[in-house]
């Protein structure tokens, strides 16, 4: 059996059926988890009625979708790469810190959005990173392991 075409897989993963199924599965898992943690009225007074109602609503939505499917909509090109880029940014933050992380993300995302000129790309990413880090630095101490390692190696 051949693997589904990536575009078709994208349509499937972002379909209404997938969303309704995902929300229903979450509600069912959470209800079970809370039940197993402590099957008492005090623990389940809200979770049990809301969880059961949510599961039934989710199933109803799924049945409705199966009986009268909505027109499949493919996600527009670039959406998944942008999500992947954002996930990479989040994953990289603890390793490289905010200055390097924001710079690399803005560079990659601007390129993905169609900014071609390398000078513009680097200039915009550098200026934005400087402004963002300075302003965010006023309200929170941002971890900068890459910069710390750089200066550490220089000593």
């Amino acid at each position, binding site marked *: 059996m051949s693997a589904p075409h990536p575009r078709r897989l994208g349509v499937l993963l*972002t379909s*209404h059926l997938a*969303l*309704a199924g995902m*929300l229903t599965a*979450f*509600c069912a898992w*959470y*209800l079970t*988890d*809370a039940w197993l*943690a*402590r099957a*008492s*009225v*005090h*623990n389940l*007074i*809200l*979770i049990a009625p*809301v*969880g059961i*109602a*949510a599961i039934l*609503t*989710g199933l*109803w*939505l799924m049945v*409705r979708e199966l009986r009268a499917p*909505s027109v499949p*909509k493919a996600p*527009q090109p*670039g*959406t998944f790469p*942008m*999500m992947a880029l*954002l*996930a990479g*940014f*989040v994953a990289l*933050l*603890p390793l490289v810190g*905010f200055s390097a992380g*924001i710079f690399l*993300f*803005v560079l990659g*995302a*601007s390129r993905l*959005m*169609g*900014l071609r000129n390398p000078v513009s790309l680097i200039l*915009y990413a550098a200026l*934005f990173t400087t402004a*963002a880090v300075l302003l*965010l630095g006023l*309200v*929170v101490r*941002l971890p900068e392991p890459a910069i710390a390692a750089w200066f550490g190696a220089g000593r």
Partner: protein
Amino acid sequence: MDWIIDTAAMGQAMDLLSAQWAPWLLIVPGLLLGLLAGAVPGFGPGAMFAIMLPVAYHLDFLSAMIFMTSIFTGSGFGVAIPAILINVPGSAASVATTFDGFPMTRQGRQNEALGLALAASCFGTAVSYVILLAFIDNLAGAVLALGPAEMLLVVFWGLSLIAVMGGDLLKGLMAGMTGLLLATIGFGLMGTERGTLGIPHLLDGVSSISAMVGLFAVSEMFRLMHTDYVVEGSKPAPLEFRRILDGVRLAFRYPVTLLRGSAIGAMIGLLPGVGASLSNLFSYDWARRAAPDPDRFGQGAPEGVVAAESANSSSEGGSMLTLLALGIPGGAGTAMLYTVFALNDITGGPRFYAENKDVVYAIVLNNIVQAGALFVVGLACVHLFSALVRAPTRYLVPGVLAVSISASYAVTGSMIGPITALVFGVLGWMMDRHGYSRPALVVGLLLGDQLEAEALRTFQISGGSFDYLLGRPIALVLLVLLLATFLRAAMRRRRATGAAAR
């Protein structure tokens, strides 16, 4: 109903405001951010609130509330700018502004239209806070007399109103219930650990601020990234300062429309989930029906702009009344303000009002001042914000995404914030694609804890007997209202399905 203003508390409020200069400095930046959020269609005040919550996190309660309500006030006029200049409403709150605002632009009267909108927005905001000041004591007093059963039903009713407003009742309910369940993740009231997957960061629950950053800011950028400019192919008409002032003067030639729109907005703003998105249409329709020559509406009638803008701006005061007196956020905007309460370990509602009247009065007085400041800031910056409709998304989207993720780190102080924002960003994008209400999920997420506590208190008092509810007339009325909300939404859906089938 008496008009009660506690003069002692009012005096303390004035002392509070005059003793500190820092909160006053936050008004102009807040208004500018609100104008920016409103003037960029698709971005919206919700996203701006979400991004700015980390700033509020580092301010004291009064300053944070002033900063956030300034954003709210600024966005009231901001949404009118693209509606008038390019026929694209900045948000659902300015749909009715396009009906006469854009025809005025096509006639070369864009300056007058902007002046009308600015005057009506400032007037509507100020009037709505005067109404709030006049009635909050009565409302909060009445709410204090309610027991946990009534509060449980009030919270449920508020949430159901938001859930059914999205269009599809089932999708709205699913979003609201998922939000309620997400809110209970972590330690329960009896100390039971639920749904944490063994992750220590989840013991305190899902970070509602990071979730809001994801649902409103991140997901909006995933949607906006497919255009070259915020609004494609648009070229705003030229602006003249003097003629904008003529528009401001023109607005006051319609005092009845101004006052009626402000009153309608404040009343509709009281209802959770409805607010500005409905009040502008309702006020516009009323003005059209009341006019001696209704045919002028839709052709560039100044009253149309005045009616729509006074109503959408005055909804702010109405929704603030619900937030302060009942402790219920009526939508995305007040949900963010509700979070400011949580950040300061304050539970909003009648008890907070009763014990902190001076703070509430200070917020209200400051908002009346904000309405005046909006006039100056709006007039000075309207040229700048009218150019924003041509903002290139290739700069905007990467910047907003990077700031959103960093801001969610600033709130939680750990990587759980950015991870939550990312997960909820993808979820919000999916929900938006399929017509699920994101505000319903957020309000569920914010009210879940309170709902669980009220349910448990009701259970403990009643001993689990339904007869307890039957002996409480207010609870029964609320139960009927709750059922009526669902019934009305179901009937509306059935009618819509029937009409589509025909």
